[in-house]
């Protein structure tokens, strides 16, 4: 790319010392971004702003919103959407796909083992107390068989790239991962407001996700050939409610709340205008703790009394299964390469980020000493909560976290601060580098299927490493190419 054709909206774009997804070096665009960069040169900043406004309005009008902190009276926000798509090469994606499939298969074998024979605990590979003491472990589910041996029907793993462009798995979300509706909607909106940029690329579609999900859910029904599938939501006040409605509508299934369901004679029914109707598969977007007030939290109004017992009898399938939180515990995460090796006899394709488990005395000493360089995370929290970013934290926070780690070592892990890759992102009237991650979605029924793309989350504040939508993060459309552009 010559200096003369540099984008008008990219006049002084500085890739910086991070891995930049689009630029190899100042002024030098990576080959698979060349056509997009060429497009950007034809645009004035007024034109981009116009399209940006059109996109924002579209999200607003459709009510694609989330409420922050589950505050019902609080304002509903749209997730900020950045127009410049992120592009992943076909070859690169193949490796990611294989890596994710390997990981999900191994984690499901691990879950099956822990809820049955517990073979791995009789080795020295992973401390038994770490596994059985995990908050996500549900001893009520020992010896319960799940259809097809699948525990995690939907997984959303978070991937990041370091300064050299290497892909890492930052965490696995095996309970109720959200964000996939944005994958589909971001694509739709980008096509609507900026169709021209699609003409130079062959981008793999993401539209098929709801159908793929439905196929998975229908495959795990308890016996019936034509199972009735429902989506269980905590309700409109949940921050991901839009997604629940979106998925239910796309799949053509009922969106139910706990109060719509009841258990009678070891079967789950929903209340309909024509009378009761048997339910076979529940795609639940409610956490384990709230599923059944008889078994877990008695104060839960979101659940269904008797659901757990019915599920244990194999008379209803719950997806994801109860007790999967065990395997996305952030301390267990550190052992995933070991788990892959143990169950599959393979080396991991996608590496883990180096992780210090505070429960381990050596690691703990290291964490306490180097806390100012590390990211410290609570093992059970998500959404960017319960997290300390050492290099950016004031001294009193460092001290507070030191105390926490000392008092509750099982509750914390630490990782080196990652130099997350950056991507050109629209900022007022020009493009600037912003840190990004990627959450692909992996479906597991009869087979493993990775949706081509995923949610690229972007930390919109300059220099920020926090991409969570609850903390000022936005999103980009993510393109996986059918083939590399020639």
């Amino acid at each position: 790319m010559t200096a003369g054709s540099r984008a008008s909206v990219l006049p002084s774009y500085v890739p910086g010392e991070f891995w930049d997804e689009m630029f190899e070096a100042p002024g030098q665009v990576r080959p698979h971004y060349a056509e997009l960069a060429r497009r950007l040169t034809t645009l004035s900043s007024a034109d981009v702003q116009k399209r940006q406004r059109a996109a924002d309005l579209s999200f607003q009008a459709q009510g694609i919103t989330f409420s922050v902190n589950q505050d019902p009276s609080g304002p509903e926000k749209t997730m900020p959407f950045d127009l410049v798509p992120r592009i992943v090469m076909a070859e690169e994606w193949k490796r990611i796909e294989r890596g994710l499939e390997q990981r999900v298969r191994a984690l499901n074998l691990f879950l099956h083992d822990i809820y049955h024979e517990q073979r791995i605990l009789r080795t020295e590979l992973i401390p038994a107390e770490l596994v059985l003491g995990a908050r996500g472990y549900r001893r009520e589910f020992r010896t319960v068989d799940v259809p097809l041996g699948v525990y995690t029907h939907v997984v959303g793993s978070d991937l990041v790239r370091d300064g050299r462009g290497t892909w890492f798995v930052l965490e696995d979300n095996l309970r109720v991962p959200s964000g996939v509706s944005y994958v589909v909607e971001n694509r739709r909106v980008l096509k609507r407001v900026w169709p021209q940029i699609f003409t130079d690329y062959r981008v793999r579609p993401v539209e098929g996700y709801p159908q793929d999900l439905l196929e998975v859910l229908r495959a795990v029904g308890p016996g019936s050939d034509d199972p009735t599938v429902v989506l269980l939501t905590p309700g409109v006040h949940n921050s991901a409610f839009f997604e629940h409605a979106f998925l239910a509508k796309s799949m053509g299934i009922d969106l139910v709340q706990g109060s719509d369901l009841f258990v009678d004679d070891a079967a789950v029914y929903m209340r309909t205008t024509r009378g009761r109707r048997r339910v076979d598969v529940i795609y639940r977007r409610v956490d384990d703790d709230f599923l059944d007030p008889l078994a877990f939290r008695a104060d839960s109004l979101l659940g269904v009394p008797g659901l757990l017992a019915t599920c244990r009898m194999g008379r209803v399938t719950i997806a994801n299964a109860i007790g999967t939180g065990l395997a996305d515990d952030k301390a267990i995460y550190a052992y995933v390469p070991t788990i892959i090796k143990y169950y599959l006899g393979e080396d991991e394709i996608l590496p883990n980020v180096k992780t210090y488990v505070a429960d381990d005395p050596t690691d703990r000493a290291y964490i306490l000493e180097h806390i100012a360089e590390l990211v410290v995370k609570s093992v059970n929290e998500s959404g960017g909560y319960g997290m300390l970013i050492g290099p950016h934290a004031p001294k009193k926070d460092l001290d507070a976290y030191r105390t926490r780690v000392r008092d509750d070592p099982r509750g914390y892990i630490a990782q080196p601060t990652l130099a997350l890759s950056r991507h050109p992102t629209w900022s007022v009237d020009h493009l600037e580098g912003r840190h990004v991650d990627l959450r692909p979605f992996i479906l597991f029924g009869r087979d493993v299927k990775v949706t081509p793309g995923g949610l690229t989350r972007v930390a919109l504040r300059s220099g920020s490493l926090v991409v969570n939508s609850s903390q000022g993060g936005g999103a980009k459309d993510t393109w996986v190419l059918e083939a590399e552009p020639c």
Partner: protein
Amino acid sequence: MLSRVADDLFWVARYVERGIAVSRLVDVTRHLELDAGTEDFWAPLVGAIDLAGDDVRFYLTSDTMNPDSLVSCVRAARTLSRGIREAMSSEMWEELNSLYGSLATPTIARPRGEAISFARLVREQLQSFQGLAESTLARDEPWHFLELGKFVERADDVARVLNRQSHLLAAGSHTKDPTGPDVVRWLAVLRTCGSAEAYARYYSLRVEPARLVEFLLLNPIFPQSVRFSLTGACLSLDAIAALRTAAGNEPGPAVRTLGRARAQVELTAIDEVFERGLEGFLSNIQQLIAQASEELSATYLRDEPVPGRLVGVARATMIMAAQQQQQ
């Protein structure tokens, strides 16, 4: 269809219809005020509240403490819709959502001087919502619950407006033509029910209370009349009940109660209405509608055990036994 979803659809339709009725009321009261300048003209329309001028308008349009204000109706309809957007078309949801979004803008939400244009704007979008339902929904359960809510609300609204005016007709004054202010008042009643033009076409604008009451209460083909609305409500309820019966369940008592209300307006002539007393007649209709609404909730929307066939037969047997003893 889920009972909760049906319930919410029913109430979405009621709030939308109520919003339309309230917006007409805003329109009418403002016009009345500018014409005649006397508050007691429109006070009976609004109901018994101690407010005047702009305060009334605020109460009717933007007061979030008033559950029946325009803003409250739109908010309630939109909040419910948000939870059941999978049961309606995207167009319907987006119409309601964008209306709600525009109300959240402070300049529009406080329409002190602009009440009429504000009310009209809201009304148009609510009517557009109804139009979209008409053209985008299949005629199955969601549609019928929307229709049911719309017509039950309309019948109730019109009956209420008439009832609030019925005191004017006390002492038999309805037999002679009204004079002066009363004409204005009766025209306002027609406008409040969105029926002034249709009435004019029907009767060439001779505003006689008896004709007017007959038109709004008993007309079989005008969609704002109580009779038309109750017929529409019954048709939808029958369709819903048929599906339930086909699944082997009791259709519930609401079918009979609403049918009774419908029979009242279908099988009573206007002179008989006045013979029996307009106020009592209207109160009876309103009471039957309220009862049907409650029974509907119990059967379809909350799925409570209702006195079904078994109870009905058992009770009939007890009554028979009691009667035999008397003989």
